[in-house]
């Protein structure tokens, strides 16, 4: 047995179940990343961030992604747009976390539909915190939403309009620009499309909505989903070896894609 196990200890090999839901002490990652982002960006006039997503079951490419992100200069934060796991398995979360946490700047993760599978949503909640969250980088408010409606059987309000309304009021009172990030975009099969138009209504009510970002479609795309002038920027999946980079100032924003 000792010969068989070679250089690693038996302890590493103990697993009670692939869905055992043991976050191994990783807890509330987004909250600590947000604290850093808000502190680092408090005085910045230019905010630069990267969006990526759908890294599921592509560990090799995800390592390359992290190296590519780390080689970029002057980036403030990274948004992972969801689907870090393919099957919602507990180990998939910790494997991917080990890779992504080598990103040297703060990064936050949004829940994807694959991350919800089985008890994956519980694993996500433990590791990253609430599924809807918001942070402020000086003049910019980034609203991150769970949009994986069909995974929840209407037992949880998705998208959560109460949460969106709170951020809407906050953007109005603090005079903030807003970017809305999500995994599945409106009108995709995951979205609660019965609520797509109210969603559009809420988003267009924000005083200065710059654009939305999403993942889920596995390809780089820019769409004006509701033909109302609000652009949705889709991040490619990691095996496309590309990510999106946004530069935002008080005057406007620019968008580019970076290959790696």
């Amino acid at each position, binding site marked *: *047995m000792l010969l*068989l*196990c070679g250089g*690693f200890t*038996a302890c*590493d*090999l*103990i*697993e*009670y*179940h*692939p*869905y*055992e*839901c*043991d*976050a191994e002490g990783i807890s509330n990652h987004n909250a600590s990343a947000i604290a850093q982002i808000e502190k680092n960006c408090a005085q910045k006039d230019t905010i630069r961030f990267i969006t990526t997503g759908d890294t599921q*079951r*592509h*560990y*090799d490419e*995800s*390592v390359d992604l992290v190296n590519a992100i780390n080689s970029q200069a002057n980036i403030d934060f990274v948004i992972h747009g969801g689907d870090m796991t*393919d*099957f*919602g*398995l507990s*180990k*998939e979360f910790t*494997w991917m976390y080990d*890779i992504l946490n080598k990103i040297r700047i703060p990064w936050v993760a949004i829940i994807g539909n*694959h991350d919800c*599978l*089985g*008890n994956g949503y*519980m*694993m996500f*909640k*433990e590791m990253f915190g609430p599924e809807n969250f918001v942070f402020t980088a000086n003049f910019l408010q980034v609203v991150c939403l769970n949009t994986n409606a*069909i995974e929840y*059987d209407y037992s949880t309000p998705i998208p959560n309009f109460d949460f969106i309304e709170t951020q809407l009021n906050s953007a109005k009172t603090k005079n903030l620009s807003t970017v809305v990030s999500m995994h599945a975009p409106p009108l995709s*099969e995951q979205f609660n499309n019965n609520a797509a138009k109210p969603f559009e209504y809420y988003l267009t009510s924000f005083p200065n909505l710059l654009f939305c970002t999403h993942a889920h479609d596995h390809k780089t795309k820019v769409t004006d989903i509701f033909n109302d002038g609000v652009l949705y920027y889709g991040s490619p999946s990691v095996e496309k070896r590309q990510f999106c980079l946004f530069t935002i100032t008080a005057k406007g924003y620019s968008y580019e894609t970076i290959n790696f």
Partner: protein
Amino acid sequence: MKRSTFKLLTIITLSLGSFISAQSQEDSTNTNSYIHNIKRYKEGWERLIPQYYKVQYAGSIGLVSIGVGWSYCKERLETDLLWGIVPQYDDSRSKLTFTIREQYIPFHIILGDTRWSVEPLTASFFMNTILDGRFWEEEPKGKYPSSYYNFSTKVRFNLGIGQQITLDLPTKYHKSVSFYYQLSSCDLYIASYATNKYLKLKDILSLAFGVKVRVL
């Protein structure tokens, strides 16, 4: 009484008498075959009495699993049924699982004059199902577009290898005790390992330890 009626009654009485006497002869033969058949019937069902118990630690089917099993084909094949408990950890509840394991044990080596014997290889195939409403065998139709996920969250197919030692120590209650370990991996881990150099064998292997107590 008419003649014809008398004749008819006579015929009925005689035939009834002969039927009854034939019946009693048949009864004794029937009793014998009944005893014989019932013996075979009971023996048939007796084969379903589990021959051994197993208690296992870890191995991706629970923190602790307990169950029963049968061995056949000169003890080269074994079938286990195991029930396991997965602790709650960061989930909202703990979970019960059920496992069917088929094990092939090609060699039984008796160690000299000792009561010990060694099974240097055990090869297993096992299916584990998690008994929890949030997991599905197939993605629910109507909820998802067709072929949306194409895998089961509820059922895991596993392959394992291991070794076992057995101590032939009859007591009032059992014949022998075996100690085993097993290294295994499941379908989804193997699929992930196959396409990623990043994952190492140790990432996808699961170790189990267990005890088997043979009663029959």
